């Protein structure tokens, strides 16, 4: 299975790029290109190995060395990797998540790449790759967040996809009256609660306010933030979320939805594969955009971008930049994001979306109905330390909403320490 996937992907990519590769060959890259990647799950790993092999084949004088590191481990290893004997290309994430490495001068400024006309096609994520007026990496994939729900359960109780908060609450009440929880969630590792905050805050106060809060420009004790929590609390008080969610990881919370004890899950598109593996068919499973709360603000959506970067100490800068051009080209992005590969969305506007119900819906939503803006996600938009203290507070709020004042005070204390 593994090798079949890999070879078919390789064939796909190879077929796609032969036309455009003639120009690239002219550069005559030589030497070594060392890549460290965190794409360690089976499917992403095959994609990465295919990318490296194909790039190697394209450049006869270049030797591509690929090291794959466990995704979770990479989050702590990247510091050492960038510091001592850095490779030429690494994986990381967009927005504030890359700030520590940008500030420490460990990522190379690649604004010159972004100035090339081909990069026009990546304009949608340019903002997320920009810090201090320069660009520090390129995106290779992104995915939408939204509410995945059990269509069969909705049909059973005569519910339809909610578009505003009243419908949302009414739907939820109907479900609860029938003994079904509205939402499953597992907050053991905290970040899932961050998704809920992103959505309720941006729907209540808008994208600009949310990002101002992320930049530390707004007090956590602000009335507008309190309004966000008040809206959230309506769901908590009616018992919309499953019990004991602080004990489960996001995967451990899936069975509630698969068994029909909960009707919906606010999640990233990567959850679809797990839901299908759990036995849900595409007839049972559907997707809707998080409903409107405040009609005065436009929809903003979470769509985290995964990225490649060049370390400042890279030995083979030319080859590294060529590799970034390669992974951002439309054909390659189409191939690596296909349903048989990553199963996510390509960033390049000229790439095509795989024929998958959720990818198509997500792409349509992000392109046509996210006028407010694209958020990266709580732990990528907010400063690292603010995010960790914040998500802990969000988890506590979901279990003990009465502690809100204390939680907000704590967050405000942290904000003042970090941003002053």
């Amino acid at each position, binding site marked *: 299975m593994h090798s079949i996937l890999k070879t078919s992907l390789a064939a796909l990519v190879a077929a796609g790029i032969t036309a455009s590769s003639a120009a690239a060959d002219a550069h005559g890259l030589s030497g070594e290109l060392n890549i460290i990647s965190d794409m360690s799950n089976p499917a992403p790993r095959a994609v990465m190995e295919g990318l490296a092999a194909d790039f190697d084949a394209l450049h006869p004088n270049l030797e591509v060395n690929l090291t794959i590191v466990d995704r979770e481990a990479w989050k702590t290893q990247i510091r050492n990797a960038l510091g001592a004997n850095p490779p030429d290309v690494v994986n990381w994430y967009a927005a504030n998540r890359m700030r520590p490495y940008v500030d*420490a001068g460990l990522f190379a400024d690649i604004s010159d790449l972004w100035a090339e006309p081909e990069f026009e096609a990546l304009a949608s994520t340019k903002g997320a790759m920009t810090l201090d007026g320069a660009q520090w990496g390129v995106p290779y994939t992104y995915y939408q967040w939204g509410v995945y729900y059990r269509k069969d359960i909705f049909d059973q109780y005569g519910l339809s996809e909610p578009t505003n908060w009243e419908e949302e609450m009414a739907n939820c009440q109907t479900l609860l009256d029938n003994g079904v929880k509205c939402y499953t969630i597992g907050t053991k590792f905290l970040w899932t609660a961050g998704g809920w905050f992103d959505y309720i805050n941006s729907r209540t106060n808008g994208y600009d306010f949310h990002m101002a809060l992320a930049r530390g420009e707004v007090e956590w004790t602000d009335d507008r933030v309190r309004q966000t929590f008040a809206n959230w609390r309506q769901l908590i008080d009616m018992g919309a979320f499953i019990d004991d969610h602080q004990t489960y990881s996001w995967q451990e919370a899936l069975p509630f939805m698969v068994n029909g004890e909960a009707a919906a899950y606010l999640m990233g598109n990567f959850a679809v594969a797990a839901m299908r593996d759990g036995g849900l068919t595409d007839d049972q499973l559907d997707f809707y955009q998080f409903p409107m709360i405040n009609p005065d603000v436009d929809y903003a959506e979470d769509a985290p971008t995964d990225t490649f970067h060049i370390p400042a100490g890279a030995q083979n800068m030319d080859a590294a930049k060529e590799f970034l051009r390669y992974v951002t080209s439309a054909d390659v992005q189409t191939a690596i994001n296909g349903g048989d590969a990553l199963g996510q969305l390509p960033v390049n506007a000229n790439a095509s979306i795989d024929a998958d119900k959720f990818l198509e819906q997500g792409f349509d939503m992000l392109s046509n109905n996210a006028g407010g803006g694209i958020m990266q996600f709580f732990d990528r938009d907010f400063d690292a330390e603010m995010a960790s203290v914040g998500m802990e507070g969000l988890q506590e709020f979901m279990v003990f909403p009465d502690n809100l004042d204390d939680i907000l005070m704590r967050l405000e204390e942290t904000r003042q320490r970090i941003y002053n």
Partner: protein
Amino acid sequence: MSVSPAVPSTHASRPQRGWYKRNEIAITPWLFLLPAMIFFAVYVIIPIGQSFWISLHEWDGLGEKTWVGTANYERLLGWGDANVDRKFSVSFWNNLKWLVLYLLAIPAGLFIALFLNQTVTGIRFYKSMFFFPFVISQVVVGLVFSWFYLPREGLLNAILGFFGAGPINVLGDPTLATYGIIAAGLWPQTAYCMILYLTGLNAVDPEQVEAARLDGAKGHKMLWYVILPQLKPATFIAFVVTIIGALRSFDLISVMTNGGPFGSTRVLSFYMFEESLSEFGFRMGYGAAIAVVLFFIMLGFITYFLYAMYQDEKGAH
């Protein structure tokens, strides 16, 4: 064929020996100790010094260090006008809970050891069963106990349900979670203490037991006045190992709750890890300050242990 000299040699009968040869007895032990001492210095002594140094800085682990003096300690311990860092006080009290409750492993281990020290058929089997938790990795113990505690499917709630008690979510309840983890940690630690005591019981002098029996001692009097004093070395080791184990508790917390819910199960070593090395940890200086505080707490115990051992040695001479 050798030709012997005609005149007797005027040289000293034995040739001059090398410097090493002359000092062999004094130097050789140090030579053997040298590798260990170098390793100890490089991997223990120098890093301790570095921790002290880093704790006086603000440092993200990547760029330049900024000198902040004792600012990290002021925030951590609430010196001056700052409040005590709440996460620190939670961690500190949890460490204390660990310290006190973990000591239960010693009497529990002794009890099981006494129970297993019988000559009954099949006792070897029971012994190996009791050895078992000690052999399993802490990570596995943590996993097994988290399943045991699961709010819906867990065995604990099945048992409680049988007695009509309501379901509880041990690891999801900030007031219970730490105790739940300690209970999990007590399992292998008790097994460890039991092994120590079983070894100690083997060394109990049968003649003294016999003599005490002739004097009419039995039951708990026999245990208290005859057996326990002879188990003193085993008790000492069990005490040292348990205290150190409680202070460095980390893996169970990491596996079972990851410090949660809402950071209520943090201990100092886990908090240190979170601040300096975890996914969002970019405060090396602050983490180092926590490490220094933990080091001083440990140092208190280590000094006491060394003192006790020294007294013991003196008594033996």
